[in-house]
């Protein structure tokens, strides 16, 4: 099974085989449009599909005994452009569970986020999304 098939679910037919065009909703969610409904040009769909499937890397921040809670929240807001509520929620998750998954991105974007988080002294890694 290819990685793409694995992400879609092995038994699911590709949209093209079923004659249904994929479309993306706000937030990057993939939805299926019925034939005859408004669709994007093929090239955009292909690009968006590629991008969605490429976001197969997660960025993880690990707990440590030294970094201040407020500092961690500031770093999440600065590097990941999180709002205060999300940044605080992730900070607590790191503190209480030992780690938090902050983002699911492309390999390159994940790498860039890890670099920035480490620049602020946070223990950050990346791994392939399950």
């Amino acid at each position, binding site marked *: 099974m290819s990685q793409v098939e694995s992400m879609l679910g092995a038994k699911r037919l590709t949209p093209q085989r079923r004659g249904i065009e994929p479309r993306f909703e706000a937030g990057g969610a993939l939805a299926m449009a019925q034939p005859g409904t408004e669709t994007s040009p093929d090239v955009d769909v292909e690009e968006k599909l590629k991008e969605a499937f490429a976001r197969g890397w997660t960025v*993880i921040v*690990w707990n440590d*005994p*030294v*970094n*201040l*809670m*407020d*500092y961690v*929240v*500031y770093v999440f*807001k*600065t590097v990941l452009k999180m709002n*205060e509520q999300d*940044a*605080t929620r992730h*900070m607590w998750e790191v503190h209480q569970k030992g780690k938090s998954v902050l983002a699911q991105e492309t*390999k390159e974007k994940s*790498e860039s986020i*890890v*670099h920035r988080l*480490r*620049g*602020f*002294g946070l*223990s950050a*890694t*990346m*791994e*392939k999304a399950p």
Partner: protein
Amino acid sequence: MTCEQVNPGLWQLRFPEHEAAFIVHVLAQLGRHYEQDIGKLPPALRAYWQGSIGSGETSDAKGLQEEQEMLAEARAELRSDRLAMVETWISEYELAKKLDPWEVALTGVERDEFVAMLNDRRMQIALELGVTEADMDADAEAIPEDKRRHGILEIDVLGHFILATLGPQIYRP
């Protein structure tokens, strides 16, 4: 110290004389640390500055070899950039005509670097001393060993400087 935003992209830091002397001492320590070859650092500090970019099934960095090398390169470059910043700030302090308060104007990027560097110093001390969560929760004044007590007190004090620079981030009603 105080940190005041004077316009959308500029912050003014003001340190009373004794705090300025402390910060310059910290910067000098950081300068010596940044000058050191990463390969010659103690293992815990080396891991902090190098470490593995991968975790979980990718912890052996297979498939991430190129990214691992780029991280190592970026980390070495960061130390070199921060060393240059340390030298600039120490030089500005030495040339300053007025030291009470010592005033420093920082852009947003410089302000982020300033707090990240104070945090580097906190991490450096913690990793050298093997500081744990329990140490951080304990009463630092009650720690009998001088080196450990001084180290943890410095970590605490630097934490106050970081928060004074950034302001509180978590809403506490």
